[in-house]
């Protein structure tokens, strides 16, 4: 069966270039310039899809982005694409959806017979029993039936790009209004961007036959293309409008090739000083029984298929309308030799239309609408009702219920559309500053008035963008506009037997809307959510306004009171991949590499992600798994000497006359009296009195300090310092600069570390006397200034060697080489983190912004007399409670078992339930104690030293016995540090 055929000539298709494509695996042909929709129609494919709920046969209904029915899977990996938006390209593979075994013969159509059960609210009223969780039984069936197309689990082979753009005037839409405004603004000298979702400029003009229109169009386009300050982007959709005139555009590229870096789509974030919305209008369907049969389409779409794609109904078209615009379709069809019958809801039809219709031999039925549409798989017969009852045999039924201005973008800014009685549709409810509307979007449908409107809007927008020299207006063609007259018709008073669809894609009928009304779901949002109206991939472009009109009728109130709907971005479906662009996979977030990265790699490091950093986790010399390698690395440090990359530490240069006062304020402990050349451990709090970070600060000179922070909090602390200095303590003369990237750091640790340093820096005096614990020494090697701090995270005799980053690699190799006789080797993050557990140093897992100084056993370092950030709130009642969970060491008492991070702690006599008395933060095997040890927080803390506890890990059904001990597992007296 076919309802359409292609004419031998005419249209804008390029008949020289034939294009082959497949539809459900069968090869078909079309021409360049076709859309998938036009090519399918030209091939006689009237029935192209099945509806969502009832699996009713459906055909293509529109010629634009509003298409609710004709959705296809494209090239096997892109579901639900409207055929009307797909340019026909060689090799395109289109697959029909939601039907089994085929759209022609769909067994799921059985749903139609159960339709009375699938009434609105069906799900909410059933599937509640018999058990509490009964939905779990029904859900898989419902889910399988839901969804339209199938997604692909394969990785997307295409590439997506993002771009930023700026301009003075953005024009959205290149119909008559858009072309006019763009040209006027362009003539003013403004930087103009004109975007059009179609592949050609002209909008509705592309469907006209009049030569004057075409001449006008080509003239304006030619001038636009000649202006250097005008950028034209076709195949580009304005998807959303965001604050401060950010418009998100999606550009689709013809020649995409991921391997050669050519994106399939580019998402452009464009900021324009002024914006002109020339977005046009979308024709509205009429609602009548069986208005969804294949072959029922919008009147303007039928005209587009005729004039742009040279496709006509086989023999006869019936056109039903409530306004004048459908007559253009009727006349064009009649002139193309197609028999046309016209049904008009209006009793009185303008006389010029009547006489032209008579001249063309059209049958006219005023005051008449549609009672029913027959035809199992496509329209065959239509029954008219009203002033005239008749049965018309036809191939195609075209309908026009009026026009809905495309107000989506204007309402993205939060300005609600308002109902305009004159055109029976919603228009923008106003414009934000520097926003302008032109053409059909404002409710003006005549060509001459649109051009006039466009000239004004173009000049206004240019002026708003700062280009106020008067520009020559764009000429019209001197035709006379006819007034737009509409007699709105929302729905038949009675629907008879056939379903009258309001939302084609979601299968929402007039009856469903009545049901929603009966049950009180009358607010527009309730109506949408209860019936799923407008929730499909077409976003309700053809259904929302009809539904509002119908609901207003049911509620017996004007549409303006019944409410409007909120339009949310994006305007059309927007691939998530296009939004993400190239910022996916390996490029999802930048990675941060230590200046020693290459050196680490050369020494066999295995890396691990730590925030953005890639850190050396463990080294090949020690083994091939982290679980065992770190133990060898720990032994190296405890018994000999190791070297570790600590470049990720945050480093801050603090300089200025008030540097000491500043540090004194931010740290709980004092820094004013720190002698030059000495370092001190410090802890800082947030205003709430909770620990923010810790680190060491070294006094380089009287008014110059070098501060380190933890790796994780480096950015936070830097920003906090800047906040305090720039907004709160503006009287303090201090300047802070991040040195995290300037300086690399390496820890040289272990009893032989001094020997190693001496070998590395033979000219320096690194003796205990000259460089005692917490001392600082600047040395020079090959003319490079290197800073040695005697600090220890491991608890051993240890040094931090800080060096300008570009010298780090060669210094690292130098130290490893000269100290080789001492057995020096690198150790990684896992060993670093484990060594500090043995020493009882807190780190990220303990500094989780829930703990106080006292919780971490650091209360004694806070100055009693001095003030510091967080001091006041630190003393809040519950933060001082004696039974707070605080830092303890934990020793495993069952040697054949394991301690695990995240274990919950209980006292030996406790029932094992609830929240316990604490938990384990960090665990390691202790090479010194030859057992598992851990740090944790425990209610009452070290008051319970020596007590037996249970570490519960119910996720693995484990409970182990352990004991509370001091967190300083080794060298409590600090003999090693001070050695």
């Amino acid at each position, binding site marked *: 069966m076919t309802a359409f055929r292609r004419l031998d000539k005419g249209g804008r298709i390029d008949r020289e270039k034939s294009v082959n494509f497949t539809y459900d695996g069968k090869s078909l042909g079309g021409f360049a310039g076709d859309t998938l929709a036009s090519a399918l129609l030209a091939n006689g494919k009237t029935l192209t899809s099945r509806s969502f709920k009832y699996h009713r046969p459906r055909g293509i209904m529109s010629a634009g982005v509003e298409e609710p029915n004709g959705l296809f899977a494209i090239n096997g990996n892109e579901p639900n694409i409207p055929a009307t938006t797909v340019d026909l390209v060689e090799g395109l593979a289109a697959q029909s959806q939601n039907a089994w075994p085929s759209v022609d013969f769909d067994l799921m159509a059985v749903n139609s017979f159960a339709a009375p059960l699938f009434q609105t609210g069906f799900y909410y009223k059933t599937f509640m029993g018999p058990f509490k969780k009964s939905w779990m039984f029904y859900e898989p069936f419902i*889910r399988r039936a839901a969804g339209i197309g199938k997604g692909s689990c394969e990785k997307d082979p295409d590439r997506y790009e993002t771009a930023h753009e700026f301009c003075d005037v953005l024009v959205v839409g290149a119909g008559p209004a858009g072309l006019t405004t763009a040209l006027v603004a362009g003539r003013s000298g403004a930087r103009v961007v004109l975007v059009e979702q179609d592949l050609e400029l002209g909008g509705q003009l592309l469907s006209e036959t009049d030569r004057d229109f075409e001449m006008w169009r080509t003239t304006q386009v030619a001038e636009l293309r000649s202006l250097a300050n005008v950028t034209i982007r076709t195949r580009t959709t304005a998807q959303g409008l965001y604050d401060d005139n950010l418009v998100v555009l999606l550009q689709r590229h013809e020649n995409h090739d991921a391997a050669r870096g050519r994106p399939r789509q580019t998402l452009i974030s464009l900021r324009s000083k002024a914006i002109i919305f020339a977005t046009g209008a979308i024709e509205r369907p009429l609602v009548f029984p069986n208005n969804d049969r294949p072959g029922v389409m919008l009147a303007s779409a039928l005209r587009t298929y005729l004039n742009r794609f040279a496709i006509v109904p086989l023999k006869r078209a019936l056109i039903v309308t409530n306004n004048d615009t459908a007559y253009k379709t009727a006349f064009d069809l009649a002139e193309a030799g197609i028999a046309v019958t016209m049904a008009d809801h209006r009793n009185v039809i303008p006389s010029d239309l009547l006489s032209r219709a008579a001249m063309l031999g059209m049958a006219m039925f005023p005051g008449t609408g549609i009672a029913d549409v027959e035809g199992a798989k496509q329209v065959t017969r239509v029954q008219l009702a009203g002033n005239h009852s008749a049965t018309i045999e036809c191939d195609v039924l075209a309908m026009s219920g009026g026009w809905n201005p495309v107000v989506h973008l204007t309402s993205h800014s939060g300005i609600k559309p308002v109902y305009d009685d004159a055109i029976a549709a919603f228009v923008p409810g106003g414009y934000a500053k520097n926003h302008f509307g032109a053409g059909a979007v404002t409710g003006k449908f005549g060509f001459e008035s649109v051009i006039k409107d466009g000239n004004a809007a173009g000049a206004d927008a240019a002026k708003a963008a700062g280009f106020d020299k008067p520009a020559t207006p764009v000429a019209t063609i001197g035709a006379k506009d006819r007034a737009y007259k509409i007699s709105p018709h929302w729905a038949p008073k009675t629907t008879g037997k056939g379903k009258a669809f309001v939302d084609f894609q979601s299968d929402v009928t007039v009856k469903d809307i009545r049901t929603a009304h009966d*049950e009180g779901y009358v607010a527009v949002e309730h109506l949408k959510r209860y019936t799923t109206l407008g929730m499909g991939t077409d976003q309700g472009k053809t259904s929302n306004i009809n539904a509002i009109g119908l609901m207003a009728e049911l509620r017996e109130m004007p549409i303006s009171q019944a409410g409007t709907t909120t339009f949310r971005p994006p305007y059309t479906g927007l691939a998530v991949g296009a*939004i*993400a662009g190239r910022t996916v*996979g390996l490029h999802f977030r930048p990675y941060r590499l230590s200046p020693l990265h290459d050196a680490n790699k050369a020494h066999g490091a295995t890396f691990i992600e730590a925030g953005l950093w890639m850190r050396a986790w463990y080294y090949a010399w020690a083994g091939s798994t982290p679980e065992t390698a770190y133990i060898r690395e720990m032994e190296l440090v405890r018994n000999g000497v190791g070297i570790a990359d600590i470049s990720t530490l945050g480093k801050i240069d603090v300089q200025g006359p008030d540097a000491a006062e500043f540090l004194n304020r931010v740290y709980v402990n004092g820094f004013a009296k720190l002698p030059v050349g000495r370092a001190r451990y410090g802890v800082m709090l947030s205003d709430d009195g909770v620990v923010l970070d810790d680190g060491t600060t070294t006094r380089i000179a009287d008014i110059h300090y070098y501060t380190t922070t933890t790796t994780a909090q480096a950015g936070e602390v830097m920003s906090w310092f800047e906040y305090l200095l720039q907004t709160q303590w503006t009287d303090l003369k201090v300047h802070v600069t991040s040195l995290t990237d300037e300086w690399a750091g390496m820890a040289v640790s272990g009893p032989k570390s001094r020997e190693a340093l001496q070998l590395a820096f033979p000219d320096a005096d690194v003796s205990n006397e000259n460089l005692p614990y917490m001392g600082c020494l600047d040395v020079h090697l090959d003319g490079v200034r290197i800073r040695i701090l005697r600090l220890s995270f491991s608890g051993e005799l240890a040094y931090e060697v800080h060096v300008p980053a570009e010298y780090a690699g060669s210094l690292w190799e130098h130290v490893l080489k000269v100290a080789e006789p001492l057995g020096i080797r690198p150790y990684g993050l896992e060993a670093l983190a484990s060594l500090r557990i043995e020493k009882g140093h807190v780190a990220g897992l303990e500094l989780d912004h829930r703990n106080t100084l006292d919780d971490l056993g650091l209360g004694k370092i806070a100055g009693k007399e001095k003030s510091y950030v967080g001091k006041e709130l630190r003393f809040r009642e519950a933060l001082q409670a004696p039974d707070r969970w605080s830092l303890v060491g934990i020793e495993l008492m069952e040697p054949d078992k394991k301690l695990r991070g995240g274990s919950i702690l209980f006292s030996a006599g406790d029932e094992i339930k609830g*929240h316990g008395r604490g938990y384990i933060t960090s665990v390691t095997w202790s090479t010194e104690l030859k057992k598992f040890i851990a740090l944790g927080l425990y209610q009452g803390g070290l008051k319970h030293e020596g007590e037996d506890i249970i570490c519960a890990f119910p996720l693995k059904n484990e409970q182990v016995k352990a004991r509370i001990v001091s967190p300083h597992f080794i060298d409590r007296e600090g003999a090693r540090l001070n050695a």
Partner: protein
Amino acid sequence: MFKPYSALALAKHALSPDRPWPRAWNSPEPKSSYDAIVIGGGGHGLATAYYLAKNHGLTNVAVLERNYIGSGNVGRNTTIIRSNYMIDGNTQFFEHSLKLWEGLSHELNFNCMVSHRGQVVLAVSPAQLDTFARRGNIMRLNGIDAELLDRGQVMKLLPYLDYSKDARWPIYGGIIQERAGTVRHDAVAWGYARAADTLGVHIIENCEVTGFVMDGDKAVGVETSRGKILAGKIGIAVAGHSSHVAKMAGLRVPIETHVLQAFVTEPVKPMVDHVISWGAELFYLSQSDKGGMVFGGHIDGFNTYTQRGQFPRIQTVAECAVSLLPLMSKLRLLRHWGGVMDMTPDGSPFIGRTERPNLYFNGGWCYQGFKATPASGWTFAHTIAHDEEHELNRAYSLDRFEKGRELDEFGIGNWTYKQ
């Protein structure tokens, strides 16, 4: 006239379609006074009214909604329910909520499509897996289901995630709560409204509260766009606008209003059977029963009452979606929207009495308002009815910061200006 919902009723109705279904809830004129008023016809307000009537026999109750019911965050969230909380005070509350979800459709005679499809939280480092283990262990110790998953188990369960060498952060494992899942969010508002209405509660839409009627320190009624209404007790449940309404009663609260965006794609056949959350960045996704991928991320990061988000956040969330689930790349976003939310300094809510007698406060829900709905209503009703906190909401007092009793479930400090 209440007419129970069931398959049988539906079949009967199908046979005699001319007898319309009754209204789901009525639309009464407000009376001049009630025993109790709940300000806010969202999920929490409606649930509160329902439990006031059901659990405490208080039926002379009105819910005042300035718009249509469910027009706030109950209709704007990503529909996730779960009870994986580890801080004492949160754990029991959210578990109670999940238990109420389990029987909710039954209880309300309204199918809210409570789907216990399981939530998987993915860890991107061994240390993160340890912190998840702590959470899971606490859950198990409180009778809540949780299972730890290693990488292999995650691969088996969620084969479509990116496990390739191109993944910026490899997945080390995860934790699953099988009982967690999703709920048809709008149905929750409708279901509670219908059930409360059946018990005699007045649901009054298009009624905006513009002020309080005070007798000294005591709140005795409200001024509304539909006139003055007196009440013995008044509960505020207007998350998103809590500060605004509290201010009318002279209260300053630890809340800032932020926008959280949510996203939905076109509907496709089932691909994702769980709720998925990611440890690399805040990101969560599930596939609705209708087939759309519903997902979200962080708040935009500054206070605003505009229900629209900033595009950089949209990009961030899309980047997460495609990086974690490559299948998301070709799926098309159909809508995104913003909900305005009460953010509190510690990320936990408030339910309790205020310094004004007879005035009760419920707000500060941050990211977790939806999943809390039943327990919030349950405990708030208790607090209003008995003028004292239920043991489940004792931790949620408005003055907890003065006492240093923060409930910092996520351990990141002050939410309100952290991005």
